[in-house]
C-alpha cells in the first residue's frame, strides 16, 4: 500500500471530501502552500528580506517591488514571503511541544482520575497545576513570560507551548477517561500489563487522534499570539521578517496614507490562519470513521 495508483487517490476520502467542500479545499491548498513557503520561501524572494535600500523607503507597489517598500526601504513582498518561516516555525514547534507534553500528562490525569495511591495524586496534582495556568489570561501570560525570559523566538515557542498545554491535556484526559472503561483495557489488565503500560501502550494510541486534530488550530492561534506580541514590541524584532512586527511598522504610516506596509503581511497572515483552521476541520472529519463511510457511499454530510 505504499504506492497509490491514480484511481486510489481519486477515490480517497480526502479528495472526495474536498470536492464537495470548496471552502475546506481552499483552506487545504493554502496550508500546503504555507508549509512549502516556510521551507523554500527565503530562497525564492526577489530582494533581501532583511536589508533595506537607502532612499527607497515607502515606495508604493510597483513592477519592481510588488508590495512596495517599508519605512526602512525593505521589500515588503520578500519580507512577507520570508516571514512564513519565522511565524510557522514558532507556531509549529510551540504547538508540537504543547502536544508532546500535554497529551501524555493528559493520559495520566485521565487514566488515574479519581483513583487512590501515587498515580491518583499525580493525576490530581496535574489538574490543579493546569487550573492555575488557565487562570491567567493567555495574552497576559505571554507578556509575563516574554518579560521574564526575553523576546527571542525560542521564548515565544516556550510561551505558545505553555499557553496551549492545558487545552491539549484536557482533551487527552477526557478521551482517556472514556477509554479506560472499554473492554480492551480490561483484557490488557487481565493478561498482566502494568497500569502505566496500559496507559501509554493501549490508551494513548487510541486517545491521540483528536489531540492531533487540535494541532492545526493551536498552530493558527500560535501565529496570532506571536504576531500580537511582536506587534506591541514584545516579540520578534525588526529586521527579522515577521508578520506582526511588519504590521506594526506599517501602523504609523497607515494614517498618512501608505497602506501597503501593513496590508500585505496581515492579509497573508489571515489567509494562513484560515488555512490551518480549515485543515483542522478536515482532519477532524476524516478521522471519524462514520464520516468516512458517509463519504465513500456518496451521501452528503
Amino acid at each position: 500500500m505504499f504506492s497509490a495508483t491514480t484511481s486510489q487517490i481519486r477515490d480517497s476520502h480526502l479528495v472526495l471530501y474536498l470536492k464537495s467542500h470548496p471552502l475546506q479545499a481552499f483552506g487545504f491548498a493554502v496550508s500546503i502552500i504555507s508549509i512549502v513557503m516556510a521551507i523554500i520561501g527565503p530562497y525564492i524572494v526577489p530582494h533581501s528580506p532583511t536589508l533595506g535600500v537607502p532612499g527607497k523607503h515607502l515606495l508604493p507597489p510597483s513592477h519592481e517591488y510588488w508590495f512596495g517598500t517599508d519605512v526602512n526601504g525593505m521589500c515588503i513582498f520578500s519580507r512577507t514571503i520570508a516571514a512564513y518561516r519565522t511565524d510557522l516555525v514558532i507556531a509549529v514547534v510551540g504547538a508540537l511541544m504543547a502536544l508532546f507534553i500535554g497529551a501524555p500528562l493528559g493520559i495520566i490525569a485521565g487514566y488515574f482520575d479519581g483513583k487512590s495511591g501515587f498515580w491518583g495524586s499525580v493525576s490530581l496534582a496535574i489538574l490543579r497545576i493546569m487550573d492555575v495556568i488557565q487562570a491567567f489570561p493567555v495574552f497576559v501570560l505571554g507578556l509575563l513570560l516574554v518579560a521574564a525570559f526575553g523576546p527571542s523566538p525560542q521564548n515565544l515557542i516556550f510561551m505558545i507551548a505553555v499557553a496551549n498545554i492545558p487545552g491539549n491535556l484536557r482533551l487527552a484526559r477526557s478521551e482517556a477517561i472514556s477509554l479506560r472503561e472499554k473492554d480492551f483495557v480490561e483484557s490488557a489488565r487481565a493478561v498482566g500489563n502494568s497500569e502505566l503500560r496500559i496507559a501509554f501502550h493501549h490508551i494513548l494510541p487510541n486517545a491521540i487522534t483528536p489531540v492531533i486534530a487540535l494541532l492545526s488550530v493551536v498552530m493558527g492561534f500560535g501565529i496570532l499570539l506571536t504576531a500580537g506580541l511582536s506587534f506591541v514590541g514584545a516579540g520578534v524584532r525588526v529586521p527579522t521578517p515577521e508578520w506582526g512586527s511588519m504590521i506594526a511598522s506599517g501602523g504609523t504610516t497607515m494614517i498618512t496614507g501608505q497602506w501597503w506596509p501593513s496590508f500585505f503581511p496581515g492579509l497573508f497572515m489571515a489567509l494562513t490562519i484560515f488555512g490551518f483552521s480549515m485543515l483542522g476541520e478536515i482532519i477532524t472529519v476524516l478521522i471519524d470513521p462514520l464520516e468516512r463511510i458517509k463519504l465513500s457511499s456518496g451521501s452528503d454530510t
Partner: protein
Amino acid sequence: MKLWRYLRRRMIFIIPQILGVTLITFLIVRMIPGDPARIIAGSLVNEAGVELIRERMGLTEPLPVQLLYYVRNIFQGDLGRSWVTGNPVLEDILLRLPTTLELIILALIVSLAIMVPLGIRATFSKGGALNRLTNKLLTLYGMAAGAFPDFWLALILIFVFYVVLGWVPSPIGAFDIAVVPPHRLTGFYIVDSLLTGNWDALKSVCSHLILPVFVLAFVYGGGILKVAMVSANEVKKSDYISYATICGLPEKDIQRYISKACYPSVATFTAVIFGFLIGGAVLVESVFSWGGFGQYAVQSVVNSDFAAIQGVVLFSAILNLVTYIFVDIIYYMVDPRIKNLG
C-alpha cells in the same frame, strides 16, 4: 439560599487557584532580568544607596520571606508602586480598567445581540436561494472571522474610514482634542458623560468607539455565531424539541426553547473571550491609543516595571476567575438541573 451553597462549593476550587497564581507570578517576576532597586535609584545613586533601597524593599530577605511580605501586602490592598507613573499600582490599574472594560463589554454586547439570534434563526431557515445564500455567508463568516488579526483589521478600517472616507474622527484616544472629557465618576466614559450631562463628550466618545468596537465585535463575533449555530443544531435534534414540534407548538415558542438551551454554551464561550480580551484587547487599544489596562500591561513589560507587571498579571488572573464564577451563576439561573443538585 441554594445559590450561596453552590457558590461556596465553587470557592473551594478558586482559592487554591488564586494562591497558585500569586506564587507563580511572584516567582516569574523575580526571574525578570535587572535589579529593581537599581532601576528605581537611577544611575546617579551610589552602591550604598542602592543597598538601602534594596533593604527597604525587602529584597535582601530570603525568597520565602519576601513571598510572605508580598501576600500580606496584597491582603492590605497594596500591590506596590510603579516607578514609571509613581503611583500605587492598584490605583493605576483601577484608573485604566474601566476604559478597557467599556470597550470589551460594548463589543461583546454588540456581537451577542447580533450573532445569537442570527445563529438560532439560521437553524430554522427554510429552502429558497436567498436563505441558502445567507446560511452559506454566515457559515463562511463563522469560520473565517477568527482568522483576522484584530489589530490589522483595525488599521485597515482606519485607512478606509478615516484616511480615505473621513467618516470617523482621528483614531487617537477616546475624545476629540477640543472636547473636555467628562468629570470622572465611574471611569466608564459613556456612563460618566451621561451622568454629568456632557453631551459633547458623549458624542465624541461614541464616535471614537465605533471602529474599535466594530473590530472586536467582528473578529470575536465569528466564534459566538459558530457556537450558537452548533449548539442550536444540537438542541434541535433533542427529544423534547421533536416532541414540541410534533405537538404543533408555534415555531416562535420552539425557537425560544432552543435559545434558552443555547445560553450556557454561549455564555461559557463569551467568558473565555472576555478573559482573553482583558489582556488581548491591548492590540486594538494600542492601535487606537486607547490608554487602557492592556496598554498599561505592555508599558510595564517594556519598562521592566516589576511592581506593575506583578500587579497587572495578578489582577487580570483574578478578574478572569471572577468572570468564570459569574458564568457559573448564569448557568445556575438558566439550567434547572444544577438548581436541583442540592
